[in-house]
């Protein structure tokens, strides 16, 4: 299970994507930075899953951002009517990786005879057959990014409203196990730590926290769709993408 790095992160929405595409917008730079921060983990995961090593993957993502997002202004062709931005970005990155692979293969063929073997090419071919699927990696990291942002949103909200006990229980019973795979802290321990009345009270607090997190996840997804009526559809589509097995 991948770790979800729970850190403060600015999220985006369609208005930010569209703002990024407008070269004369005074806020374009900030929007672009937010876009990059948001999608970097998914792009990086896709590159790594395609067989590119860690150092090179950083360079590849950086190159994609410079060449496609900035110079070719990918965001300018984004259109909420034509689908999700994550889909557009993922497809553009696939094309970028393919072009890059072709260019590298061509260079390698020149000095020697025959087609040299390439770990990256093998990985790309493997991914075409559904093994170690880069698209799957992209989607998983995208969902992790959405959930991470929702967690941050709830943490801030609970701090501001001094719901310390509810946050602690949510973190110990739900977020930590989800993020790092650790076992949930027993209710009895939390009752003692937080000086609560009983387990029933602790469980009620968890439910309040879980509801808040569920709402925050829906809000985060809501930022990525054109209309609030599409939130549930997008959440179901993400579940389907996560559960889609390699063909």
């Amino acid at each position, binding site marked *: 299970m991948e770790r979800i790095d729970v850190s403060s992160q600015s999220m985006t929405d369609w208005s930010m994507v569209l703002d990024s595409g407008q070269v004369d917008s005074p806020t374009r730079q900030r929007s672009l930075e937010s876009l990059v921060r948001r999608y970097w983990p998914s792009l990086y995961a896709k590159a790594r899953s395609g067989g590119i090593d860690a150092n090179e993957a950083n360079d590849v993502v950086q190159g994609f951002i410079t060449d496609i997002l900035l110079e070719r202004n990918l965001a300018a062709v984004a259109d909420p009517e034509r689908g999700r931005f994550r889909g557009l970005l993922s497809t553009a990155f696939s094309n970028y990786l393919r072009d890059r692979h072709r260019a590298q293969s061509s260079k390698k063929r020149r000095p020697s005879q025959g087609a040299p073997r390439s770990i990256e090419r093998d990985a790309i071919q493997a991914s075409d057959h559904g093994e170690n699927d880069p698209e799957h990696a992209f989607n998983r990291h995208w*969902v992790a990014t959405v959930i991470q942002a929702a967690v941050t949103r709830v943490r801030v909200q609970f701090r501001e409203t001094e719901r310390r006990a509810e946050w602690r229980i949510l973190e110990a019973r739900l977020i930590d196990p989800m993020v790092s795979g650790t076992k949930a802290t027993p209710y009895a321990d939390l009752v003692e730590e937080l000086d609560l009345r009983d387990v029933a009270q602790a469980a009620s607090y968890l439910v309040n926290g879980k509801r808040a997190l569920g709402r925050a996840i829906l809000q985060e997804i809501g930022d990525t769709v054109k209309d609030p009526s599409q939130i549930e559809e997008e959440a179901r589509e993400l579940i389907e993408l996560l559960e889609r097995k390699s063909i």
Partner: protein
Amino acid sequence: MTDPLSDSLRWAIEVGVDPSRTSIDWLAGELVPGSCSAADAILNATGRPDEHIERLRLLKNGFKTLRISAEEPAVRRLAAQYYAATIAAALVRRGAWITTQRPTRVREAILAMIDDDHVADSLRCLGREAIDAIDQNEAVETGLEP
């Protein structure tokens, strides 16, 4: 093994679809692991009678807290109905009175639960039996019935 990412999305959808019922069922699932709904947790009378009563007390206390601490009025209202349902279940299924509240007050709470169509039908039926039990007991105590 369940996937925490798709699980999170699933329960986020549940929050969007039926917020109050979801909270009630989640709480029951936390307090009575393995129960598929709050009604299931309340009505499941497996185990020794004292274990069942203890489960109902636990659920009652959970719904009581949720009745006060939940953010949304709809969740607070439904928690109050399920709080009454646990008392009704203890009375009907085990002949136990698990609250310090007076019967007249509990009767009102159970009647409100019966009238709420957000509550599972099985619990509303149980509520009617509880009302009969309270009324019979009251009649005996006041000497109106043999």
